[in-house]
């Protein structure tokens, strides 16, 4: 039974939220000048602006410019005064926070991946931290191997950085293709499924009931009327229809058993009855989230989003090296990566929350709701693929000017 009071609101919020999510993902990528820009004559081999392309306010632009100027002063200071390394690290950390506070393809890829796949906040945070650290590590390795060990010229370093960049773009395209295959397939399967429940068959494994903690601890879920669907926070994984609890227990909670109702074991032993269409959603316990998650996919995402070094880190490293203080440059780069992780982590939170909100609002129990979620996942996957392809073509000049 649909509640006439609740559903219109859900649709309205969903109607407002979905364009926002999509616009957000697009906005993250759209201003990336690499889409339209050749390599700057004074670039360091990374097409334009490193990882940071903001433009929201002139103030932010000027702050970042100031930070970068202060960085070289701090490296100089560290030459004569060892304690200035702490100043340098502090500045680098702040630079990382600011630097990441704008659209960039790495963030777009991570956000799209998380939106398409991820439901666990903690893992989203870990993935974005890993991507940020990888970004710093690539810069350290690039400068360490080429400049420190091989004494390569700027031109060779540019070539190497461009190569790394092209490879990372190819990685994004590969990740996007994989996600489109996975998510698009699920979308098409849902579309072709003759009737609701669309999450049955392959998605609902009757022989594999799983446990999950109720989000509201020990609260019995007594607020749902009969005929209420119970949506779970697990991709591609439904829950089995268990034996119905005895009428006596239900009567005690004021539930009326319905033919469609089913009961889950909530670990705490709380009886829980829903039917279709109520859209009740539980945030999953991260501890139980092993299913539907592929480390291979997650690692590919980290590599795709984080393997392109940022121009600022390369410049600080080379400058530190020229000053005979390569270690200070390494410390600065790590601090920069941690600062970046703060900002990208916040974005990861947004992506995961947006996904959870979308699932919650789209009546996960209904066929239409499943279609909406699968469709959005497919769109996010297409965005990753499109971004990867156009960045790769731009970087390798396959796409013309």
């Amino acid at each position, binding site marked *: 039974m649909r509640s006439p009071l609740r559903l219109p609101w859900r649709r309205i919020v969903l109607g407002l939220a979905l364009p926002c999510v999509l616009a957000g993902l697009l906005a993250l990528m*759209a201003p990336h*000048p690499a889409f339209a820009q050749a390599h*700057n004559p*004074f670039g360091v081999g990374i097409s334009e602006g490193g990882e940071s392309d903001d433009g929201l306010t002139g103030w932010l*632009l000027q702050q970042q410019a100031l930070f970068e100027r202060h960085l070289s002063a701090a490296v100089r200071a560290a030459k004569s005064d060892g304690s200035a390394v702490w100043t340098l690290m502090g500045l680098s950390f702040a630079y990382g926070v600011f630097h990441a506070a704008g659209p960039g393809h790495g963030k777009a890829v991570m956000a799209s991946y998380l939106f398409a796949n991820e439901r666990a906040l903690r893992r989203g945070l870990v993935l974005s931290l890993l991507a940020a650290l990888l970004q710093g590590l690539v810069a350290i390795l690039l400068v360490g191997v080429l400049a420190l060990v091989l004494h390569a010229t700027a031109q060779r370093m540019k070539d190497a950085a461009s190569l790394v960049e092209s490879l990372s773009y190819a990685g994004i395209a590969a990740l996007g293709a994989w996600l489109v295959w996975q998510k698009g397939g699920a979308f098409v399967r849902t579309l072709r499924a003759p009737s609701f429940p669309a999450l049955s068959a392959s998605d609902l494994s009757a022989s594999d009931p799983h446990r999950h903690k109720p989000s509201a601890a020990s609260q019995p879920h007594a607020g749902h009327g009969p005929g209420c669907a119970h949506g779970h926070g697990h991709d591609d994984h439904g829950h089995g229809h268990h034996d119905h609890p005895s009428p006596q227990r239900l009567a005690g909670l004021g539930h009326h058993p319905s033919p469609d109702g089913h009961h889950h074991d909530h670990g705490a032993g709380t009886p829980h009855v829903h039917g279709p269409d109520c859209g009740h959603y539980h945030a999953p316990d991260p501890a139980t989230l092993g299913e539907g998650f592929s480390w291979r996919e997650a690692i590919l995402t980290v590599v795709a989003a984080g393997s392109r070094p940022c121009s600022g880190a390369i410049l600080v490293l080379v*400058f530190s090296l020229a000053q005979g203080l390569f270690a200070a440059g390494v410390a600065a780069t790590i601090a920069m990566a941690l600062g970046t992780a703060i900002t990208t982590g916040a974005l990861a939170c947004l992506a995961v929350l947006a996904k959870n909100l979308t699932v919650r609002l789209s009546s996960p129990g209904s066929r239409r709701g499943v279609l909406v979620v699968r469709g959005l996942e497919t769109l996010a996957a297409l965005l990753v693929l499109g971004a990867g392809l156009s960045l790769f073509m731009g970087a390798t000049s396959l796409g013309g000017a």
Partner: protein
Amino acid sequence: MLATGVTTLPDAASAHPHVFVVAREEVLFGPDGRITGIRAAWTFDDMYSSFAIQGLGEADKILTSEQLAPLAKTNVESLAEFGYFTVGKAAGKQVSFGEPTDYLLEEGSDKLVTLRFTLPLKEPAPANKAFTLQVYDPTYFVSFEFADKDPLALKDAPSGCSASVAKPRPLDTGDNQKLSEAFFSNMSPGVDFGIKLASRAVVACP
């Protein structure tokens, strides 16, 4: 389809600068009193300078312009695509430049690298109406700034010519608002920050 859609989205002039250049420009006059070219001297910041000369020559020795000649050639050649980051206007009409000549890179005793090159005008421009000169990177990857001291010189100019440099007005709140509105509606600010932050040099002759 989606890929092309993303590719054709307008690029926002939104990078923040990684390279900082202090520019000194010289306006060259012909015997007839018309402007024939621009001589640029761009000094790079310490970080980019150390990157540019990385791996060249011996450590702790100042490089000679001969050692830096291949790099200078690469630089001016790749600048062509970007219009040499230089915009000259005679009486409001944009002038076009020919191939750069007399280019060289030099490393100063302060280890800062300076790129010098001459940009000949394809057709000499009159200077009796205001001639304006701006040096900027529209993508704002490179931040250009006129030098505080002697930013603009006139060479072989007729007597009575004057030169002045107007610093950019700071980005005001109106710009910021316009930017964010535009950002959220079009995903493109529609304005070049590079030019908004660019100084304008003006040459006026009688």
